[in-house]
């Protein structure tokens, strides 16, 4: 692996499989009475979060603690960022205290790449703007593989706000790299131009995307990133693009339904579907810890980079 994990775009198929296989071994640690191994003892990991996050931050923190790293969390609401400090200045000051890894979430696409250029510490992208969220795509792939034993040849439908979604971008890159048949669907205002060049089928028909799908991945409507009228109303969005139990029937009988969370019940997904038998949403959360342990081990478990 390289020094940092900035995006799925930088990973080869082999590296992706190495991460998924390592995560299999890490999962078992979470089932032990003592859920801790000494692997990253003496290493320091900073979780630097410029955007609100419950799942991802907690998941990283648990992963770090299970590997015995020392962790500290910096939430921007309580930091000097409010006093006007820039991202690079904050990072350089943190670097002066010699952490081994910085896990960064930031609202600007490319923030992690910027830090990776100026920092000695390893940077793990925990979501940068509308760009990538690599550990989410890895945990999604891990969850799919657990249920289907493979990724190659599966029909995966990704539905919702494709434009603002870093989860979509990382997943499309990963799934096409591993040979899945990826279909994306959403309102035309929320389909990024040129997405077809990434090797996916684009359709405005949710039913067409879902037909015979092995996997349905729902994306959250990101109202916080929407400046302007992308959808007429949330009720209309639900009736045209929302995942209902009626719609699920078009997929394969053994379909699994993923959602990166947090879910908007009754907006992109009906409550009974989110809580229903095909949903693996909570498994995704559990698997997130194992996948992040794998990434941390593979990046930081070895000797210092020169």
């Amino acid at each position, binding site marked *: *692996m*390289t020094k940092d994990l900035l995006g799925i775009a930088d990973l080869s198929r082999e590296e992706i499989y190495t991460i998924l296989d390592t995560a299999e071994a890490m999962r078992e640690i979470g089932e032990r*009475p003592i859920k801790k191994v000494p*692997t990253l003892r003496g290493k320091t990991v900073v979780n630097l979060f410029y955007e609100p996050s419950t799942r991802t931050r907690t998941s990283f923190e648990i992963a770090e603690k299970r590997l015995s790293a020392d962790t500290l969390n910096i939430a921007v609401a309580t930091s000097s960022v409010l006093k006007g400090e820039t991202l690079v200045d904050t990072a350089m000051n943190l670097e002066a205290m010699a952490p081994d890894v910085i896990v960064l979430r930031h609202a600007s696409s490319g923030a992690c790449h910027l830090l990776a250029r100026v920092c000695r510490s390893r940077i793990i992208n925990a979501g940068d703007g509308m760009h990538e969220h690599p550990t989410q795509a890895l945990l999604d792939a891990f969850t799919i593989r657990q249920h289907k034993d493979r990724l190659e040849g599966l029909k995966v439908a990704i539905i919702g706000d494709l434009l603002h979604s870093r989860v979509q971008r990382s997943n499309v890159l990963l799934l096409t790299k591993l040979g899945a048949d990826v279909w994306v669907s959403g309102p035309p205002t929320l389909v990024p131009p040129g997405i077809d060049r990434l090797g996916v089928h684009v359709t405005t028909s949710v039913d067409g995307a879902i037909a015979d799908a092995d996997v349905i991945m729902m994306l959250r409507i990101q109202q916080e990133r929407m400046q302007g009228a992308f959808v007429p109303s949330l009720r209309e969005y639900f009736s045209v693009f929302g995942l209902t139990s009626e719609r699920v029937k078009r997929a394969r009988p053994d379909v699994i339904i993923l959602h990166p969370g947090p879910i908007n019940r009754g907006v992109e997904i009906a409550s009974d579907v989110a809580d229903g038998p095909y949903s693996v949403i909570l498994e995704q959360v559990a698997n997130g810890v194992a996948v992040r342990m794998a990434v941390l081990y593979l990046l930081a478990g070895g000797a210092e980079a020169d």
Partner: protein
Amino acid sequence: MPVVMDADRMERTLTRIGHEILERNRGVEELALVGIRTRGVPLARRLARILKDISHHDVPTGALDITLYRDDLMRHAVGGQPVVRRTEIPFSIDDRRILLVDDVLYTGRTIRAALDALIEFGRPRAIQLVVIVDRGHRELPIKADYVGKNLPTASSQSVQVRLTEIDGRDEVEIQG
């Protein structure tokens, strides 16, 4: 390069160790076998079969991966991280006599890591160590309870234990 143990010899060695285990522990009721990945795992399974043949009791068997407990992780070059595989111990080790199984005993560092890993699963009554080959050159105060063969070696040499389950044949060879 000299082959110092062939398939026939290995089979008899394991059978002998099986008898020693029973003699020393006076029965199998509290025993459990834990093989250290990679080659300790098939060896532990073979010993379980031998113990069953002799005593007509099933001895629970598990697999231990010690990668995350190694003391040399920090010395590895970036990118060359050892592969972590699953640890599977599907029984409680509390109050059992654990037979830890590995192919070669050398510096003792693997066993040190394995003891650390094992103890996090509970509090066994005792841990005993089974190895096919003891080649000397210990760097830690660790000693095997059951040894297939003592092999005096130079540190420049390497000892390969090959097992049918992994390598297609059973033998022990000294190289270098």
